[in-house]
């Protein structure tokens, strides 16, 4: 971290110090706040509500114009993006790292599975209630971990949270009477309501096979939109600014009366809540909560999504999650269809290419996709302002 303050006229772009560059996307001023003309409302809440409505419209369009299988993949994107959104708040804003968010998702997923595990004849509790319970349970676990995490830094925090990712799924094996061990708990997907069937039929004429999966995809995307609305408001609020202060200048923040530990715990709790919701959505999308779904590699891919997309931005987290879901199968298809590889070969090489892409992205766009674009925009605007002032 550079000790000098970022010059005020050129937010986020001036310093070359690595952390500033990596979180550049998060530091960009919100639209309308930079004195630029904008069509978006100036009040943050209104602006985010507008984005939410537009997002919902885009989501319906996307879900209705794509095939069922893509719907399900969008469901996968949704739960990864919810977790990645929480993680991007933690890492991008508050400056803590977590390699254990996959384990927190497991808490949400198992809570959902246990609550929906009722006899076929009985009516399961309402999904909203189940999701709230999953979020509550994960928040609790997150708070416990957060208290420990607030005392740790950098690699020590990474190590502690990695232990969580490795250890927590093991509990499902240890208490196999409750959690059914390696096989996990199967989840009966929520029944779609009648009005949904009718509406979808009118919208796109889809009927028959897999409509229930479509309903689940809608629930997943709805959860994504709602959670991003909350997260976006948080990030643009006083809390978001405080977290940035905690991240960038510990001493200055403490002098300003910010309790570092409390704010770090709070960041962990918020991102754990997001991970809990993500786990709950995963549970109904995959219809299974099993330890094999929450291996440490899940936590690592979440971090990958956040970093590739652009640390500290929700758009980046969403983009990164979409890449996680769509890139590997696309690479496998490419290997199989274009390079005429065998299925096993194509699957194996997709990992290699995927890894290479990550390395290349980190080398040439260390601020991630969204961060790089924002940086470029900022530079252009700064250059234009400079020429204008030079002329005037």
């Amino acid at each position, binding site marked *: 971290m550079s000790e000098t303050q970022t010059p005020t006229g050129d937010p986020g772009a001036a310093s070359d110090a690595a952390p500033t560059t990596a979180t550049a996307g998060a530091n960009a001023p919100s639209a309308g706040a930079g004195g630029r003309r904008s069509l978006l409302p100036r009040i943050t809440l209104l602006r985010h509500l507008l984005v939410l409505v537009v997002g919902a419209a885009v989501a319906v369009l996307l879900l209705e114009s794509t*095939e*069922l*299988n893509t719907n*399900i*993949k969008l469901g*996968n994107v949704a739960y990864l993006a919810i977790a990645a959104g929480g993680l991007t708040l933690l890492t991008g804003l508050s400056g803590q790292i977590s390699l254990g968010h996959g384990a927190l998702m497991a808490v949400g997923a198992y809570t959902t599975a246990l609550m929906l595990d009722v006899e076929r004849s009985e009516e399961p509790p309402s999904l909203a209630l189940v999701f709230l319970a999953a979020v509550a349970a994960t928040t609790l676990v997150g708070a416990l971990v957060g208290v420990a995490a607030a005392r740790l830094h950098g690699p020590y925090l990474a190590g502690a949270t990695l232990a969580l990712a490795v250890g927590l799924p*093991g509990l499902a*094996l240890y208490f*196999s009477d409750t959690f059914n*061990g*390696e*096989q*996990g708990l*199967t989840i*009966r*997907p929520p029944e779609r309501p009648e009005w949904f069937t009718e509406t979808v039929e009118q919208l*796109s*004429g889809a009927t028959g*096979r*897999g409509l*229930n*999966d479509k309903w689940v995809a809608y629930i997943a995307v709805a959860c994504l939109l709602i959670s991003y609305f909350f997260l976006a408001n948080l990030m643009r609020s006083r809390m978001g600014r405080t977290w940035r202060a905690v991240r960038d200048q510990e001493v200055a923040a403490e002098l300003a009366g910010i309790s570092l530990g409390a704010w770090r715990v709070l960041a962990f709790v918020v991102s754990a809540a997001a991970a809990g919701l993500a786990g709950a959505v*995963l549970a109904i*999308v*995959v*219809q*299974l909560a*099993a330890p*094999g*779904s929450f*291996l440490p590699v899940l936590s690592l891919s979440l971090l990958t999504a956040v970093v590739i997309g652009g640390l500290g931005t929700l758009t980046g987290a969403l983009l990164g999650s979409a890449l996680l879901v769509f890139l590997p*199968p696309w690479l*496998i298809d490419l290997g199989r269809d274009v390079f005429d590889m*065998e*299925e*096993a070969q194509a*699957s*194996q090489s997709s*990992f290699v290419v995927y890894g290479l892409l990550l390395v290349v992205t980190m080398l040439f766009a260390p601020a991630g996709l969204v961060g790089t674009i924002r940086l470029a925009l900022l530079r252009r605007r700064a250059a234009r302002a400079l020429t204008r002032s030079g002329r005037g």
Partner: protein
Amino acid sequence: MTRNSRRLVSVLAAATIATSMAACGGDDDSDGGGGGGGGGGTAEDNEATGPGMTEDTVTIGSHYPLTGRAAPGYSEIPTGVQAYFDYVNANGGVYDRQIEWVYRDDGYNPTNTSTVVRELVLEEEVFAIMGGLGTPTHNAVLDFLNTEEVPDLFVSSGSSLWDDPENLPYTFGWQTDYESEGKIIGQYIAEEFPDAKVGLFLQDDDFGEDGERGVRQYLDDDQIVEVQTYTSGNIDVGPQIAALQASGADFVLGFNTPPYTALTQLAARDLNYTPQWWYSNVGSAPDLVGSLLGAFSQGAVSGASALAGIYTTSYIPTVDQVDDPWIQLFQRIWDESGQEGVLTNTRVYGMSMAYTMVQALQAAGRNPTGDDLVAAVEEAGADWQGPAFTPFRYSSDRHAGISGMSVVQFNAEGVGEPKTPLLVTDTGDAEIEEYDGEPIAPPESGIPDEEAVG
């Protein structure tokens, strides 16, 4: 919308091909092997009946671990299936339909299984799923496949989960279930090694549990001196082997996957622990274990001969039985298929299952729906003969696969020598009986010839 139009295009394309074939004087292959079975008619009578069943193709899909911790060995199974389906296709297919075999990698992660199986059903539009591998993985798609009414034949796992026709009418097992296997093993140990102190080494899921339940029906609780479990993915089995050694067990029975056969052998070598070993069928493939042993020990231990003296069970022929007519057939088919690698037991497993699949497709008749296929397996499956030593248990109230196996001991060359006649049994209290039938030789053509039912 797009799906419908795409299907229309493929139907039109199929129709064009069919007409042009008819115009060219018909198909020469209509009597070759598979097409010869009942059901009557010729290629011109073929109709598309729904997803995956067009006029000239039938699409079968599956999921396997092609990458990750379970991939060694298991990733070869679909290549064996491919070789057999290619062979059938080259001989005219089934009812003049070419079998298209589409399989996807799930990395043995249930989340991935859920995604790839939906992709197979919704995007590739498979007619049926065959041989989906793994208990936790396949468990993730049971509800989906049965809700969507996709035939879910011959799951590659001996768990008892698949035999539940009431709740899972579309799902069928194939290999001998782990409980029956445990019973046969337990009885053999009780009779031949009454003084052995037995230690169990179990995978921590249905595989180990079902096996243990079977074994305990024949072994007294005080003869089983220790039970140790392992979690798939955790490669340190030293503590478990040390605990078995400390308990004084002089006979260790493993219900584990092939990598864990190699790992337990190496761990025991380090501890100077030399009990009599027995690995259930899943963990025993000597060629695979031999190569894994070589890889894990970096060459210090190698070859299938490292397994000399070890007991296992067997329900289909294995590659060491070079005189077996089925192995000779599969060897010929494998060589003709031109794929990389040699014939292995996992590939024989895939080919044997593909053989059963062809029997099922033949029995289902010329223009079957998914429900017809399920009905055909229930009605005729118990009578099918093939590479499996003993019959299937399929009926309208049972979806359990092969009913029995024999006990085998590896000799110094890694060749399995039978220690018992073929034994058949079932889950629960069913007696273990000697099988009175004879294993049959493959048909001349190498392709089954089942009558269509109904």
